[in-house]
């Protein structure tokens, strides 16, 4: 079928014995299937088709909103994208099937070829005849002075020094030697074949039993993590800067609490997550909260003269008493982008952007001229929008300090260790198979009038260039083995 299996099974070697042919039965079907699924052609096809599918996924943005696609490619194209699953190609049934096929392919290849390699590590390969040696890819013969035993011994010794495993057979009239080195190169290739399945398995476990969530967490708050049955308190969030003003790091101090007991406290940064009971907390983003502020600065003005009577910094949900003005005010609510739902009569923030910020005050006014309670919304951009009927005062929102939130990614992936095992296998496996190449040498030492004739032949499944060099060196060496 191909060079690899030929060399492995030694079809042209000593064990080549064709099986007796019979009718079409299960064994034949099975053999055909194994042949198909283990074929290198299928592997190449899968490699390239997966590469093509992956390319599509990088050219077309994945998991975007419909408008984005329609705007960029038009409606008709978008409909096709949906049909073909191109907006989320890595999770389509066919992409998954391709990965599954790749696993089947590499496993079948392992099943078909590894036993041969295993056997060849233990098998007798020394019973070969002269034509076999003469038919090898690299072959030569030379006359050497010395006896059959002496020359054989010299060759064996030299090869053993070079790290070859040598088998020798001494018969009357001739000696046969078999030497092999670098079988680990082949073992490595199969280690890599197994790794594909291991990695995919790890990924599968992760997607079945893992989760990934995003948490918007405010400083000072405690959140329950249901999937870990513990609580997480965000103690602090801050940003460090470089001298030139660019961001150096985003940091949050997190504390894990179990039944109110502090367990762990850790400062997490972008490259340094907190891991607790298999759940990972990543510093993922940050921002200004859209429904809370720490402080708001408010000017209290006289409605008639428009003169600022007092400037006050209101803390979130803390009542401030302005005795001189007969006022009690509290900062009761905040929205970053004011919106009003007229059905539910509810104020909400239309977005997380600070487009149209507004605060709600709860005020109680008791002066000589007025007595009232009210809950006005004060707009940052539209200071004069609403009048408070009956009040002597007008409020002006001068500024505010939004509460920072820290964006935490919360992840659990029980498959990740398996993925790392598979990764190690693939790297070790490919490295072995790339840097170590399997080579085999056969010798016949036949006595003649002058001394002996050494017939030598060898094959390798790759790295011809270095093997040729080695072969030449070996030839030179054997010619002078008794000199």
């Amino acid at each position: 079928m191909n060079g690899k299996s030929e060399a492995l099974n030694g079809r042209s070697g000593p064990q080549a014995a064709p099986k007796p042919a019979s009718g079409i039965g299960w064994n034949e079907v099975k053999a055909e299937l194994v042949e198909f699924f283990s074929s290198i052609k299928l592997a190449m096809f899968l490699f390239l088709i997966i590469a093509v599918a992956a390319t599509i996924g990088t050219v077309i943005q994945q998991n975007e909103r419909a408008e984005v696609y329609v705007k960029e490619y038009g409606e008709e194209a978008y409909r096709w994208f949906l049909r073909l699953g191109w907006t989320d190609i890595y999770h389509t049934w066919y992409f998954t099937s391709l990965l599954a096929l790749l696993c089947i392919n590499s496993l079948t290849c392992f099943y078909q070829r590894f036993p041969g390699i295993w056997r060849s590590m233990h098998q007798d390969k020394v019973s070969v005849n002269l034509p076999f040696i003469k038919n090898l890819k690299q072959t030569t013969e030379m006359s050497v002075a010395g006896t059959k035993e002496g020359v054989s011994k010299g060759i064996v010794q030299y090869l053993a020094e070079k790290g070859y495993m040598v088998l020798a057979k001494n018969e009357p009239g001739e000696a046969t030697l078999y030497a092999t080195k670098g079988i680990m190169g082949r073992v490595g290739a199969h280690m890599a074949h197994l790794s594909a399945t291991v990695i995919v398995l790890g990924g599968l476990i992760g997607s079945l039993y893992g989760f990934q969530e995003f948490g918007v967490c405010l400083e000072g708050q405690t959140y329950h993590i249901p999937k870990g049955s513990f609580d997480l308190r965000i103690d602090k969030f801050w940003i460090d800067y470089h001298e030139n003003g660019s961001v150096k790091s985003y940091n949050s101090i997190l504390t894990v609490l179990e039944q109110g007991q502090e367990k762990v406290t850790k400062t997490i940064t972008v490259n340094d997550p907190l891991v607790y009971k298999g759940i990972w907390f990543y510093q993922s983003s940050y921002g200004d909260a859209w429904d809370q502020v720490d402080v708001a600065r408010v000017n209290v003005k006289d409605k008639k003269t428009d003169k600022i009577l007092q400037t006050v910094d209101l803390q979130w949900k803390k009542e401030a008493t302005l005795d001189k003005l007969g006022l009690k005010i509290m900062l009761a609510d905040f929205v970053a982008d004011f919106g009003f739902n007229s059905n539910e009569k509810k104020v909400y923030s239309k977005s997380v952007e600070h487009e149209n910020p507004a605060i709600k005050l709860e005020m109680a006014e008791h002066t000589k001229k007025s007595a009232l309670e009210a809950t006005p919304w004060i707009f940052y951009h539209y200071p004069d929008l609403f009048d408070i009927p009956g009040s002597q005062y007008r409020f002006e929102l001068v500024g505010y300090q939004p509460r920072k939130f820290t964006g935490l990614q919360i992840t659990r992936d029980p498959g990740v260790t398996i993925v790392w095992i598979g990764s190690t296998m693939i790297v070790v496996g490919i490295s072995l198979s790339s840097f170590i190449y399997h080579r085999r040498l056969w010798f016949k030492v036949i006595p003649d009038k002058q001394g002996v004739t050494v017939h030598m032949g060898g094959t390798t499944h790759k790295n011809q260039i270095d093997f040729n060099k080695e072969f030449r060196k070996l030839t030179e060496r054997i010619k002078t083995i008794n000199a």
Partner: protein
Amino acid sequence: MLRSLFLFDMTFWLYLAAFALYIAYVFARKPAMQMAAAGHPGGGVSFTTEGDQGWAVQIGQVATIITVFGWMVNTAALFTRAMERMQHSGTFAPWSNQFEAMAYVSWAIILGYVLLEFRYRIKTVGAFVVGIGFIAMGAASLLPYRYQTAEPLVPALNSYWIYIHVSVTLTSYAAFAMAGGLGVMYLFRERAERKGPVTGVMASLPDLETIDELGYKAIMIGFPMLAFGIILGAMWANYAWGGYWSWDPKETWSLIVWLIYGAYIHARMTRGWGGHRAAIYAVFGFLMVIFCFWGVNFLLSGLHAYA
């Protein structure tokens, strides 16, 4: 900053000189030295390097010296940049932006070439591979100045993973660049051979089988390195982004490149696949590497968009 930029500039000119000298060497070599495989029974592979005469010897020697010197200046430039980074940004990896990455790739390509020359004694490869090193360095220096300076790292990059993930990946790119250069060389020589007995300039190139094998070797080095680089990237992502694989364009493209070379490695296992097809494939693969390295950064958006 200026000191390292000066050294990078010097590297560029030295590589240009070396490139020109290697081309001159190819032309100066007395062609058609029929050092056929006579002394090497059974081998189609032979090395016809020993027969340089006249000017070729001197030009070849000067080319090698300039290349090695250029590589040393390149090393010094990277080293100086590392020191500057240490002062400005607290990490020293001199491959922290597109410019530095390019300079590092040139460094790795030239190192690979020098090792190849010393091991196999084939200088004509320099006309192709040193050329790629020079082009990489040249492309780097064409980047706008703001890309060339050692700005502090953004938080996501500020990690010890950058030392190993980036350097391993870039080294694999260099190996693929080498294979691409050898592929072009193969196609040149092959074209000449098709027209009849090879004479003239083309005859000074090594024989096809040698070029083919060397190209294969380069890919055999690049392939496991890229696998290692991708996996180091996955490990880093697991620390920084909350998942080892998120189909970000850059990581997907590195996988695509890896799959392309994976198909190549498997194809070579089948009998008779090599030579012409392998050479074209190596050039194609290298173009994909270039896209993965440059194209993705400038054309596709994603988590790797740091350039």
